[in-house]
């Protein structure tokens, strides 16, 4: 037997459920999952890793689109899968497509911000795609498979 240094895979998964607190943190009012939302941004916005929370600046605007976007269906609990003495992946993906129904979004947009509306709208991730406009139609984002290699959000050690 030998010992091997590594972050524990269980820890990766527990980061996704706010189990550990290394510093000051928000008081969680409930043990249930937070509510996550998805907002869309025009192509001239600057959405990237520096975003800390939802912003209405350069968010799309149009018929049947509500500022702040739509609520994400979250039926998947985070998973943590260990693959070796040093490697593991924690991952999570929304459990349904994100759909904006019967919207007219005339200004070209190319990104979506996923954020936590329960925790002061704090940002999770920005995803980009080919620029789109929508006229009296639906815009939908279908999620990748919720797995160790393709899940929408992955934390990993190797």
């Amino acid at each position, binding site marked *: 037997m030998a010992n091997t240094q590594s972050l524990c895979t269980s820890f990766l998964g527990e980061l996704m459920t706010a189990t550990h607190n290394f510093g000051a943190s928000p008081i969680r009012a409930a043990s249930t999952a937070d509510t996550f939302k998805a907002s869309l941004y025009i192509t001239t916005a600057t959405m990237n890793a520096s975003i800390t929370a939802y912003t209405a600046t350069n968010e799309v605007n149009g018929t049947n689109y509500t500022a702040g976007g739509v609520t994400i269906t979250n039926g998947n609990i985070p998973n943590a899968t260990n693959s070796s003495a040093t490697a593991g992946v924690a991952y999570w*993906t929304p459990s349904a497509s994100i759909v904006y129904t019967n919207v007219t979004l005339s200004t070209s947009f190319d990104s979506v911000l996923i954020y936590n509306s329960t925790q002061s709208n704090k940002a999770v991730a920005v995803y980009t795609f080919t620029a789109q406009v929508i*006229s009296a139609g*639906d815009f939908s*984002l279908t999620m990748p498979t919720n797995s160790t290699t393709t899940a929408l959000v992955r934390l*990993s050690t190797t």
Partner: protein
Amino acid sequence: MLVNTIHGKMDDSLLVKKEGSVDNDNEFTTWVEYWLDDKLVHRSAHVTLKTSLFTQLEAAEIG
């Protein structure tokens, strides 16, 4: 078939339909447009994300 347009529901026989797609490492996207004369009256798009965001974490060596 009735199509939702900026002018309300219209029969698709009155409209010109255009479709397209984008397939790359990041996404597979399809879109459909309906045109009335030279005016775009309906456009929908469906994006399937392929790429996840990946963050690698490491434990530093002690000593």
